[in-house]
């Protein structure tokens, strides 16, 4: 099958290409224009923008905590009235099927679920296997687990930590490693109620800083393309920008990714003791070239926060709207699920909204700032189109700002920022940059050999509508979206790294599981054969 996408504006920052021309697909790949050859199918992309499929590096779409949220909030996901033919369950509100459909319709073809406890990895992969169209991946969580903290306490050394990280990634079939409030969740088990970067975990005698540095080094030494993905301490608290600054400084030239930086962009200025510290954070990120961040933009409306930062979720429990929460003391990180309503009339919520936009607009390099709402924590991923419009248009921003409390604008600089993201910068931030960050060589670009994941948009006056409904989307060379509607299912794969497990560490872990739990450690690992279809694709670790 030879497909020609004719006469569109081909926007491919990874290949420095921005020109009107043709794009050719054969099978599941992009190919160079053939010398002679007739397309089996031609799509006239005149007036459209042609990009690689978008990649979301941080979106909580699957797993035990997400499913707890579904079950906790039946009223939050009304099913759709119409029944789409040929796509089972796509009308089920907040099902995995709906997740795949809505992402595909926006032109997203790869999504990373960033917070899976290793013991729940099989559950997460089962949900991801039922998420149609898109490719996906999980990040496995360490940094609050008894075995790993025990290694650090006992001075096991970098080789042992590296081997344990490798074992975990292999066992849970993950693409990378995440640490969430390093040590803070373990400390909460001992009833510690606040925990900073240099606080020490009871029983283990290691600080959050040591945990982050140790895991950062292990991920780097293993050659895992995606750097350690850090959810810092003190999320959401006034004055917490200092925690983020300390964590950025601790990167010390090695790659480090900070998740949803918006939630750490808070000063304690102003008469309400809450202000934007985004300019300080942006300055630090601009200077620290080995650091990448995603924003975790907050948007207004009802949502639910889902986090493995159990300490933070517990501390914020009084803010639940409606007023109920689930806190799970897990085998390591566990989770907290709490409904929340961001209101544009609220001073604090308005500051949060503004801090996110300031980070987007003040961080210079679109290769180091990633587009997320920390779905669904800042907003559901369905808010992305509005957010694209906010970044690309000063006028759209001015309209939104006019609805916000004046006191909130007084403690931020947003009104003075004139930057507008170009289409090219959007393509970089959502395509080229995430592919590079995750080590996905055949995604995020449209060069010959790239996976034929392609999204086409027709720019219109309403930018949000432009991004909400892609004109066409191809996944692996198969056209799956027409005029903003999914036509049928196909199922993608989960991307994973596959570091060589160390025999001695495998034995050591087995002994630990036997002694602590009376179980075979293999019981809690993800067996490839157990999952349907072709479940995984291995991403190379260059080292």
């Amino acid at each position, binding site marked *: 099958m030879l497909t020609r996408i004719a006469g569109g504006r081909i926007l491919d920052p990874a290949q420095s290409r921005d020109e009107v021309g043709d794009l050719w697909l054969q099978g599941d790949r992009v190919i160079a224009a053939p010398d002679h050859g007739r397309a089996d199918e031609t799509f006239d992309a005149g007036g459209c923008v042609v990009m690689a499929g978008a990649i979301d590096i941080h979106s909580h779409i699957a797993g035990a905590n997400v499913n707890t949220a579904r079950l906790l909030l039946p009223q939050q996901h009304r099913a759709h009235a119409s029944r789409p033919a040929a796509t089972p*369950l796509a009308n089920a509100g907040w099902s995995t099927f709906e997740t795949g459909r809505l992402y595909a319709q926006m032109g997203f073809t790869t999504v990373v679920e960033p917070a899976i406890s290793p013991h729940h990895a099989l559950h997460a992969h089962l949900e991801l296997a039922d998420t149609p169209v898109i490719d996906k991946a999980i990040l496995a969580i360490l940094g609050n687990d008894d075995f790993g903290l025990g290694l650090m306490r006992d001075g096991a050394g970098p080789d042992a930590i590296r081997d344990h990280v490798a074992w975990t990634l292999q066992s849970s079939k993950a693409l990378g490693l995440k640490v969430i409030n390093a040590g803070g969740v373990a400390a909460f088990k001992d009833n510690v109620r606040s925990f900073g970067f240099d606080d020490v975990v009871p029983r283990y005698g290691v600080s959050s800083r040591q945990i982050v540095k140790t895991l950062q080094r292990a991920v780097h030494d293993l050659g895992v393309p995606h750097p350690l993905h850090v959810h810092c301490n003190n999320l959401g608290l006034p004055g917490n920008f200092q925690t983020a600054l300390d964590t950025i400084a601790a990167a010390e030239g090695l790659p480090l990714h900070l998740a949803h930086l918006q939630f750490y962009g808070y000063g304690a200025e102003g008469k309400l003791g809450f202000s934007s510290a985004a300019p300080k954070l942006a300055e630090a990120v601009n200077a620290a070239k080995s650091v990448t961040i995603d924003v975790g933009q907050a948007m207004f409306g009802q949502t639910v926060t889902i986090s493995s930062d159990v300490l933070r979720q517990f501390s914020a429990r009084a803010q639940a709207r409606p007023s109920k*929460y689930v806190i799970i*003391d897990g085998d390591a990180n566990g989770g907290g699920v709490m409904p929340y309503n961001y209101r544009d009339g609220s001073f604090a919520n308005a500051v949060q909204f503004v801090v996110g936009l300031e980070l987007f607009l003040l961080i210079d390099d679109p290769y180091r700032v990633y587009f997320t709402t920390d779905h669904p924590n800042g907003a559901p991923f369905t808010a992305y189109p509005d957010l694209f419009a906010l970044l690309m248009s000063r006028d759209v921003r001015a309209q939104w700002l006019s609805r916000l409390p004046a006191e909130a604008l007084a403690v931020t600089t947003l009104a003075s920022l004139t930057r507008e993201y170009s289409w090219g910068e959007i393509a970089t931030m959502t395509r080229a940059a995430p592919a590079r960050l995750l080590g996905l060589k055949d995604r995020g670009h449209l060069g010959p050999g790239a996976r034929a994941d392609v999204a086409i948009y027709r720019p219109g006056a309403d930018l949000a509508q432009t991004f909400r409904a892609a004109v066409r989307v191809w996944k692996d060379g198969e056209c799956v979206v027409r005029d903003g509607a999914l036509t049928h299912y196909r199922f993608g794969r989960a991307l994973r790294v596959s570091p060589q497990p160390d025999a001695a560490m495998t034995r050591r872990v087995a002994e630990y599981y036997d002694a602590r739990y009376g179980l075979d450690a293999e019981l809690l690992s993800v067996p490839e054969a157990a999952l349907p279809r072709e479940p995984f694709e291995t991403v190379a670790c260059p080292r």
Partner: protein
Amino acid sequence: MPVGSEASAWIAGAPAPFDAAVAEAARLLGLSAAPVFAHLGADVAGLREAVLLAEQVGGVLDHADSPGLLTNLDSVRESGAMLTTPLEAARADLVLLIGDGVFDAWPDLTPRLIDRLADGARVVWLTGSAGGRFESIAIGTGVARLAALGRLRAEAKLRPLASTPPALRSLAQSLRAAKFGVAVWSGADLEPLAVEAIHGLVRDLNETTRFSTLPLASPDACAAETVCGWMTGFPPRTGFARGRPEHDPWRYDSRRMIAAGEADCVVRVDAFASDAHIAIGLGEAPANVRFEVGRPGVDHDAIFYDARVGTFVARPAASPAGRSVAQTLAAIRARLGGPPC
């Protein structure tokens, strides 16, 4: 279970080729105005196909053990909860067992939890009437139990009531003094208000210390809850009568629907029974159509919910044989023109 000469499918009690039985099952479901998928005893793949088939025919999904499951879930949906896992619960320095049914709900409770507690950890059992195996306090059931839990909560909040029995007052002090306490009960055993009272008590205790809960329900029902959750957004007692999934614990109670004559075709999936099977029809026996199916994790590879860990685990089959629930239900759905999924 060999497939071939020996029958693995029956129509109206008579052996039939598999394809003919599939066709008859599809015909019955196609004619049905209100098909009900009851029992739902299946591995993850089987549950998945049951959900897809239910959507295809506009049917209702319920599980045999929904009552206990929904008793636990309802209070979580109402007011939230502090929860923990079976592995983490073994870290407790105080385990509070509530109700006589805890050991029925989790037969391995002693080896998997009690025996794994650290030395010095305390186990207290709030029983119905009899003295239990552990340090126990008989608090009755029903209204008496509710009153006792209310007292316990008040005492733990340091709001003493004059008539509180000394044993409960002393227990309340112990709960406050615990470093990590875990309350354990079975949803099949307790009244919904009792479950809510426990969650309230635990919420209060967390103002000063750490305490959590381990509500027990049948593992197969937990599997159905989870799979239905990610596929439809809702737990069992979800129906597709109007195309889209709708959850209604009363309306979609399969026992009620059958008793009231609302169900005109019942699909009973019982893969964990000793004679693993699917029966389709109106009455219990003989079914209009019956399929013998493989036992999950014995006759075919399977993923199911493991009470020891509180999540899914995989179990490969030693010697694969027979058709699975998933294969059988998928064949019926395909016969009805359901798109691949």
